């Protein structure tokens, strides 16, 4: 059984006029798979992710995670936002611990778990720092550790590296792949950067504005990791995605 199943999903916004974000979207995400959702701004990719997270309701269709229909946010789906969304009044440690203190979650040794996660994202020594003392890249590492703390089935990431400078961004991508390998998490990652999607994903789902029903394309990226951006096979995949978007 697939980890995530998206069935005939449609979203229409009621405003002064009805705006269709997307319709008839169908896809599955397998357990442990890394899927990127790319498309220009306004194509509905963030809306789609927010529906997976349970923050918004679809107009029709459904989303299943491990066979259970998604109706509201839950600890089975970890969320990482572009704007980090750390709790500024909590230290790094306290941020990571947030989900573990909820009665919804049980763990034998939470302190050790928090320490392990901080180590996983490479922030040893910053346990007692407040978010204001961290760089953007460090903040996003904390956000990833915090989302992983409750051991979600799926990690949903909404342009997580969107406001981070290019060099740090490449390093964070490598680190994310490393975390993904070590934790075996299923990841759905939204971005508008095509090379980022091709560098990370097992499969790239392409969304377009006004492209009619369904996704514009689903492109498998069967390249060995780590992937070199100068590799002709890599640039070929980037061109393939771009073709879909430009056509």
């Amino acid at each position, binding site marked *: 059984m697939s980890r995530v199943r998206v069935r005939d999903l449609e979203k229409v916004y009621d405003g002064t006029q009805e705006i269709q974000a997307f319709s008839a979207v169908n896809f599955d995400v397998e357990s442990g798979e890394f899927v990127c959702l790319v498309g220009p701004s306004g194509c509905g990719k963030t809306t789609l992710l927010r529906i997976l*997270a*349970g*923050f918004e309701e679809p107009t029709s269709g459904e989303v299943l995670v491990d066979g259970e229909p998604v109706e*509201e*946010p*839950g*600890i089975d*789906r*970890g*969320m990482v*936002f572009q*704007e980090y*969304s750390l*709790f*500024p*009044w*909590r230290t790094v440690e306290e941020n990571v611990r*947030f*989900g573990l203190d*909820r*009665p*919804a*979650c049980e763990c034998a040794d939470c302190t050790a778990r928090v320490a392990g996660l901080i180590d996983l994202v490479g922030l040893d020594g910053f346990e007692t720092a*407040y*978010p*204001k003392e961290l760089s953007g890249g460090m903040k996003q590492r904390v956000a990833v550790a*915090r*989302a992983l*703390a*409750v051991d979600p089935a799926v990690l949903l990431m909404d342009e997580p590296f969107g406001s981070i400078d290019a060099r740090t961004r490449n390093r964070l991508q490598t680190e994310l792949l490393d975390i993904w390998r070590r934790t075996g998490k299923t990841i759905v990652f939204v971005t508008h950067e095509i090379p980022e999607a091709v560098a990370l994903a097992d499969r790239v789902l392409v969304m377009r504005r006004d492209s009619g029903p369904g996704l514009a394309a689903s492109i498998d990226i069967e390249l060995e990791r780590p992937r070199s951006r100068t590799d002709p096979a890599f640039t070929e995949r980037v061109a393939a995605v771009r073709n879909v978007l430009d056509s």
Partner: protein
Amino acid sequence: MSLQDANAVTTAVSEHLEWETVRRIGFGLVGTLALTGLWAIAAASVSPGYLIPGPRAVAAALVTEFRATEPLVTLGFRTDLPRAILKLGQTFAHYVPGLAVGAVLGAGTGVAMGWDERLDDLLTPAVRVLRPIPPLAWIVFAIVWFGIGHGGAVFIVGIGAFWINFYGGYDGVRDVPDHLLEVAESLGTRSDFGMIRLVVVPAALPSILTAFRTSLGRCLMIVVGAELFGAPGVGFEIINAANNLAMATSVAYMLVISSVHIGLDVLYRRAERRLLEWQP
């Protein structure tokens, strides 16, 4: 830039800052002395003297009020206290409970209304009507409900504290970013109570504390105002002395109030900095 250069810059900067502080203190002293001089000239040039009591007369009155003692009888025990301290104590007996109860109720109501839309809709018309009424206008009810005395003054201060802190809580909650609430939700925070305790109140705390700081000063004005109507305390001393044309004593008590405010504000700011250490 070498380390040495960096050190030189740091030293230069700190020297500049020190000079800046000295300059500011110097200017402050000059300004204060000049105004006191003007005050003394004005006092010397009017007659009768009570129209503007001069700095010397006020200083003398201050000394008298701190030297003269009055008995304080509590639970049958009698202690002699300097009159100014006793009056200040009476004022604090109105100020502290009024401020505490008003601030807690105000901030609490503000947070609840900011969080719950139905409650907000239900109470907003009442808030709009009641909010513009100056706290001192409630003196009429303070008198018929509690009489002219401690209870009435506490009540007036409480009303003043309520509204200032109400908006601190309300606006603070309204400004909590949605994505923080969403993160908390996706990490398993389910109940309203959990959300308020773990996210809403901490996020709104800077706004709540700023409002509380404003209410510290405003309530001091309000308590003096309330006492002018007859509750014992600094405010009553101000009007009482004026009734005997001892204007210097009135001014002395005005200065007592402003020193208390300066002291409270400094202490509070220090506490606030510690509480909001995490703030950028």
